């Protein structure tokens, strides 16, 4: 069996499961945010359950339109707060303690290897980086799981992605996953488990693994997953709030397809409007002028991402035609960025540094685009209207490319500015 199949089997009380089977499985953690939880809460009340299945396994995180951007958003966030009080939830994160859900939960050790996690947010697939099965579902699924502690799944087929070879300077997890999505397309892994492995992955740091698994959904994947190893152990040790278990894929596990990538040939990669699969080497896009740069999101808003951007922009200025917005993904990351004086570097470069929020990633607030404006962002989606006006454009890249572009006022690579 694959690691995905093993985790699903254990959680459904079976010895074995195989692709295509519909199963009911126990969940270790259920999460929702200020957009999806209101519907989940309304539906949960219809079930009439007196309690949630486990007060410490339901996480409600207001991060999308929080800090509350308008009255409607405030009312949605209030629903989370009221519900958390009413049912004495242990994992409610008020503004000031919150961060972007998919950065916050791994950082706090609330999701651990071997877990089965569902979340009413498509990027719940992020936690596969820890060797967990985690997938995005809808609000009604969350409502049902909050009551019963279970969820129905179709066991997915698995696709294997093998990465080998040395990464070029500045090329990282974001480039690998954009390259992969560009190769297989936005429905290339629809309904499937995407298992990432190979020598390059085995030395890839955790933040880059999180970036890769985060974008599995952008290829239609049900989950992204990486077999846990020493890097996982080092990341989890000291932060895990629960016991954890490492699963591996058997030698004879079945994959519907195996893809191999020579990472030494993968360039700094940018995804052009309006699909994540629409990739080009950054070096071929130097004529693309930009109005805004966003560094943040659940994809690339971790401390390592901020360090990378700071390294590029240190001692330089954001181009006068550009606004640059930096959003640390959690309070801890924010504080760390202050301690390491990264915030100072950004502000001296004329960038703004925001409190943690999803913000512009989904065109919510803190940097929404006007008609005709163009941004390069370290986020994960560049659909029509994703960051604002339907006639605005979003290019996706890693933090170093985004920071270099801020300096140049057009898409650029770090070598040009350093």
């Amino acid at each position, binding site marked *: 069996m694959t690691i995905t199949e093993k985790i699903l089997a254990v959680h459904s009380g079976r010895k074995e499961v195989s692709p295509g089977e*519909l199963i009911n499985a126990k969940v270790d953690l259920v999460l929702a945010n200020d*957009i*999806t939880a*209101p*519907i989940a809460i*309304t*539906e949960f009340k*219809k*079930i*009439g*359950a*007196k*309690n949630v299945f486990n007060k410490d396994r339901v996480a409600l995180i207001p991060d*999308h*339109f929080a800090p509350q*951007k*308008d009255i*409607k*958003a405030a009312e*949605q966030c209030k629903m989370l707060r009221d519900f958390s009080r009413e049912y004495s939830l242990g994992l409610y994160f008020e503004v000031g303690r919150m961060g972007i859900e998919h950065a916050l939960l791994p950082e706090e050790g609330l999701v651990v290897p071997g877990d089965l996690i569902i*979340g*009413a*947010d*498509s990027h*719940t697939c992020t936690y596969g980086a820890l060797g967990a099965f985690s997938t*995005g*579902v*809808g*609000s*009604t*699924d969350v*409502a*049902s799981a909050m*009551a*019963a502690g279970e969820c*129905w799944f*179709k066991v997915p087929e698995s696709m294997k992605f093998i990465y080998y070879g040395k990464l070029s300077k500045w090329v990282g997890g974001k480039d690998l996953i954009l390259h992969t999505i560009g190769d297989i397309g*936005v*429905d290339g892994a*629809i*309904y499937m488990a995407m298992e990432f492995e190979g020598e390059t992955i085995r030395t890839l740091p955790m933040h880059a693994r999180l970036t890769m698994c985060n974008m599995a959904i952008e290829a*239609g994947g*049900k989950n992204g997953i990486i077999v846990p190893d020493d890097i996982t152990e080092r990341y989890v040790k000291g932060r895990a709030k629960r016991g954890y278990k490492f699963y591996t894929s058997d030698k004879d596990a079945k994959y519907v397809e195996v893809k191999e990538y020579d990472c030494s040939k993968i360039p700094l990669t940018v995804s052009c409007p309006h*699909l994540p699969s629409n990739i080009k080497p950054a070096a071929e896009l130097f004529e693309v002028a930009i109005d805004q740069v966003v560094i943040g999101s659940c994809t690339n808003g971790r401390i390592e991402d901020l360090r990378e951007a700071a390294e590029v922009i240190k001692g330089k200025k954001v181009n006068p035609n550009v606004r640059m917005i930096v959003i640390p993904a959690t309070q801890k990351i924010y504080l760390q960025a202050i301690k390491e004086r990264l915030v100072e570097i950004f502000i001296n470069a004329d960038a703004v540094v925001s409190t943690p929020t999803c913000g512009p990633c*989904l*065109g*919510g607030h803190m940097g*929404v685009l006007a008609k005709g404006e163009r941004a390069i962002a370290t986020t994960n*989606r560049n*659909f*029509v*209207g*994703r960051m*604002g006006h*339907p006639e605005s454009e979003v290019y996706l890249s890693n933090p170093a490319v985004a920071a270099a572009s801020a300096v140049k006022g057009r898409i650029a690579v770090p070598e040009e500015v350093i």
Partner: protein
Amino acid sequence: MILRGKVWKFGDNIDTDAIIPARYLNTSDPRELARHIMEDADKEFPNKVKLGDMIIAGANFGCGSSREHAPIAIKAAGIQAVVAKSFARIFYRNAFNIGLPIFESEDASEKIREGDEIEINADKGIIKNITKKEEYTAKPIPQFMQELISAGGLIEWTKKKLQSLKQPI
């Protein structure tokens, strides 16, 4: 269940931001969401669509976010059913969970044109094109999903399940 209506056609990879843009997600009121249905794919769509219409789309319909607001907005706009070549995974489960009938059919997705009138026999999975006098078949709905539908959606199903387990509800 027999559904009959006029068709609006869309292409491949219609994402949830096209179905209901994120800028409107500071509410989950179905009527308000319906006012912006498919707005970023076709600005005039909210005004053109009529009660009982259907959507025919290409591959990977509903890709992107997990927002249940997408199928909710479609339903609230009065659209009876969506037929596509394939659906993105989360959209697929959301549609069943909230009771929006959806059908996967490559044939129907390719051959039906905008403005055609179609009739769907949901139990048999047969899609008739009244305008063109053609017939297509949809992929069968798995047993468990049929159970969900006959229970009246996931919430009712869960309610029954908890009752049968005699868990305190």
